[in-house]
């Protein structure tokens, strides 16, 4: 137990900020999706580390992480399918150009 909890949290925060930066700054919709994945995994790191350090007797942290995986997988599947569909119709994956819902 040489590594303290705060390190993991810093790692998760850094990972989250990288993901957020990717989401906000990239133009490619796939890259935005990748950023979202990073953010989700940052959360997973948090969940697992809190479980391990604070309450190892309970399964809750691990269970949450597993559910997040599942959701992330579903999200990627749906998101990629949407992007492919948009690409087929509009020949672009740039998020700013996909603005059909705009007023």
């Amino acid at each position: 137990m040489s590594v303290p909890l705060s390190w993991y949290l810093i790692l998760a925060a850094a990972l989250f900020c990288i993901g957020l930066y990717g989401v906000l700054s990239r133009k490619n919709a796939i890259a935005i999706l990748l950023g979202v994945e990073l953010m989700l995994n940052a959360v997973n790191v948090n969940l697992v580390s809190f479980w391990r350090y604070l309450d190892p007797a309970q399964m809750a942290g691990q269970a949450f992480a597993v559910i997040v995986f599942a959701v992330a997988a579903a999200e990627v599947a749906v998101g990629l399918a949407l992007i492919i569909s948009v690409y087929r119709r509009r020949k672009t994956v740039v998020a700013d150009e996909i603005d059909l819902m705009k007023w």
Partner: protein
Amino acid sequence: MTNWIIWILPLPPLLAFFAIILFTNKNKALSHGIAVAAAGLSWLGSMIVFISAVGTQEFGKHVFESAINWLPTGATWLQVGVRVDPLTAVVLFFVAWTVLAIFVYSIGYHNFGQPKGDHDLPGLPPHGATVIEEEQTHRVPSIEPMYSRFFAFISLFAFGMYTLVVSNNLLTLFVGWEIMGLCSYLLIGFWYGKKSARDAAIKAFITTRIGDVFMLLGIAWLYSYTGTLSFSEIFKPEILQGMGNTIAFPAFAMHIPALWPFFSSFSVAGSIGILLFIGTIGKSAQWPLHAWLPDAMEGPTPVSAMIHAATMVSAGVYAAIRMFPLLQADVTGTSLAFVGFIGAFTALFAATIAVAQNDIKKVLAYSTISQLGFMIAALGVHAYVAAAFHLVTHAFFKALLFLGSGSVIHGMEHGVLHTGEHVDAQDMFNMGGLRKKMPVTFWTFLIGGLALSGFPVLTAGFWSKDAIFAEAFGGGHLLVFIVLALAAFLTAFYTMRQITLTFFGEGRTKAAEHASETTWTMTLPLVVLAVFAVGVGWVGMPAWFTGGLVPDWFHEFVGGTLAQAPEAMPFNWIPLVTSLVVALGGLLCGWLAYRNVSALAEDRLQIPLLKNKYYFDEIYAFLFVKPAIWIAEKFTSLYMDQVVIDGVLHSLARFSLFLGHVFRNYFDKPVINEFFGDGAGKTVKASGSGLRKIQSGRVQYYMVVAIVVLVVFAFLYYFLKRGM
């Protein structure tokens, strides 16, 4: 079982009425089929009720009665119900027979089976049709254009009559009474294309309405005094006695001593009785409300005439007889004296007019008024049973006479169409010699005429009239007796005049020479009624004639209706001889005076006073109709209507307009429209156009917004929580 039949007795004609007007009015055969079948059902029910009534021992004490609660009136209920007592049973008997006879007769009278008229219009009598047979054209009678309508009306009429007869209380009696009033209006005005028919309908309706208003007043008084309208309740001895001994207008009688003799002669029972009796005056066409009945002959000739002679007017007398215990309870005797005066006066008055009428139906109309006067006069001299007896016999022989006159007119119309001669088919001076052309009509009419005259022993009219004479004489009412004897003499006289002019001698016009007998649907009812016109008198033969071998069934049966059955009058030669002398003398005089009359100019009884009915129509026109029209035109229309009523209505309208204007300009437009209506729209639009800018369509921008909001709220939460 019997009660159940009595309850549904009036219903078949009502159902027939609705069936005809709603569904079958296009189909003439089906319409008259339904109507006659309904009348037949009611007839059958009436006969069952009558037979079981006759078969009941001491029926007057064991009447068929049942009632249900109908209208809640505070603590108690207004009841409706049916009641058949001996009086009702005999009335039911003649109503059933005469109604059925009318229905069957109407089929023939309205020329069922004949072709459609050449130019007949609804609302006018049929004019006849041209048919071509073997290359020859004939004019024949044509079918009535509103055939089904007629059967609908008489069905409703029959419903009214049955309702009136079987009801056990004054309320439903009055309902039936008014239904008949309506139907009489509709049937008199059946040929509404004729102005005379329209006028006659209005006259009949309004004249009878005058009587009905008084009757309704009487009913209201009776109800407020006794708290019930049911006959069996009202006729309880203690209630009758209470009403009979109480002075009607105590306040007047007490405080104005000068009027004491006048007001003390009116008891509550007597006053109510007189009010109810005024309804009878209107319905049974007694003087002074008699003027409508002769005009009612404008309706389809014999049938409506018969309704106004044998059925509906009988209802008036029936109601008076029904109310007899009330009149009798009046200790002062004023009300019965009034009844007796009206009856006797009308009997003589109408008989004198009848001798100078030339229209075959008008004679019978006045004769009806006169005969109804006989019944009313009989009631006035306490001859309860005699009045009921004459009611029954009169219904049969007068129905017979009216249907016979219709048959005569029908035969004459045939002759008119055949010869193309333009003569009045109802004027007796255009007839003559019809006995050979129309034998069935002649013989039945003769029987009816003899019954009306009171031809001794054989006919029903003799026995009923003799009963009235005996009662009037035996009761000491000599004046009534003499007046009625005179009226009876005139009755026999004008009846013989009518028969002589119509059937004997030679035809005075070509139309009369070509008259022909009518169809079986018309003659069959005549024959049936003729049998009754003779036979119905035998049930009331007094003991002196039969020597006590056969009891006076009618007297015992109907007399049982009253709480104290009246005693039979002891025999006296004077009324009997009078009755014989006036009947035979009148017939003989009529025959002698008219057997050789061949033209109107030879009739010495065409006195203007009688011919013009004592100018009663003119007097009423001068006293009531013209002032009413004058007031309507000069006052009601000009001032009441156009100034007061219209003024109120116009100012109401103006006020409403003003109010509308205020609401529109100061409330609706600014508040509802602009503030709420337009305001809501504008607000939504403005906020939409303001907020749409954040809808950029760039997903990362949304993200930034979401994060900013999250951060802001996180800080807020954090600091607010610390602050608390």
